């Protein structure tokens, strides 16, 4: 059976600026990535990657972005992501970097990876945090991630505003 195969690239937005996280929009991220592909791979690369390119999911609290592209051009996309240097939204420029976490064939695999990744991040934060109330906050959120799949989907998007 012939069908269009996509690749879903999971990335994280890293930024020094604390205001950057709240102001992220999916259109801004999409435009920034497209412009980076145009710079690095030219007209040919831009046209090839833009065929089925969208920002599927964006979490402003954790800075998680899920991009979709065709299977044939995901390497062009991944090679151009380190060249994204700033995001523009509401006439403000934020310097940022995109960090690729996972490339998967379906949204479900990316979601599974994201759940495990967030669990590991919470554990790391628990080890690193110094304040007692932050510790309690994180322990509570860890305990609320239960083992069943349905509940852990709601538990994986805890925002870490206590330790940011």
């Amino acid at each position, binding site marked *: 059976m012939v069908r269009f195969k996509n690749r879903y690239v999971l990335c994280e937005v890293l930024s020094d600026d604390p205001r950057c996280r709240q102001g992220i929009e999916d259109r801004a991220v999409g435009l920034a990535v497209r412009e980076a592909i*145009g710079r*690095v791979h*030219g007209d*040919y*690369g831009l046209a090839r990657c833009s065929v089925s390119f969208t920002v599927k999911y964006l979490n402003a609290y954790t800075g998680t972005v899920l991009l979709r592209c065709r299977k044939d051009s995901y390497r062009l996309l991944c090679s151009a992501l380190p060249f994204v240097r700033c995001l523009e939204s509401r006439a403000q420029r934020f310097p940022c970097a995109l960090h690729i976490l996972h490339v998967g064939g379906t949204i479900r695999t990316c979601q599974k990876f994201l759940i495990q990744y967030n669990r590991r991040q919470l554990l790391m934060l628990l080890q690193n945090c110094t304040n007692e109330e932050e510790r309690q906050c994180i322990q509570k959120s860890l305990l609320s991630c239960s083992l069943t799949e349905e509940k852990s989907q709601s538990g994986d998007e805890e925002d870490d505003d206590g330790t940011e």
Partner: protein
Amino acid sequence: RRELPDGGARPNAAQFKQLVVSALRELHGEVGAALPVDVLTYEEKTLTAILRVISSGLVKLWSALTLLGFYQNRRCAFRVLQTSPFLLALSGNSRELVL
């Protein structure tokens, strides 16, 4: 070997190389502009040149040259006369060889 028909301006060797690299940059971006292209010979009279490129970059180079339309706001076109992996083969057209 490439031939470049033009209206007035005649580029010299450095400008020719600049033209080739800018064509690559337009079509293939920074990755294309970083492709190592060498101009082996260049004749200003006939505007003919011999370029050398790594074999994996031939497609990119050829497509970039084909789609280059303008030089100093004048229309121009690149015509590829011959390609071969051996330099000696470019010295003569073996089809016109008279035995």
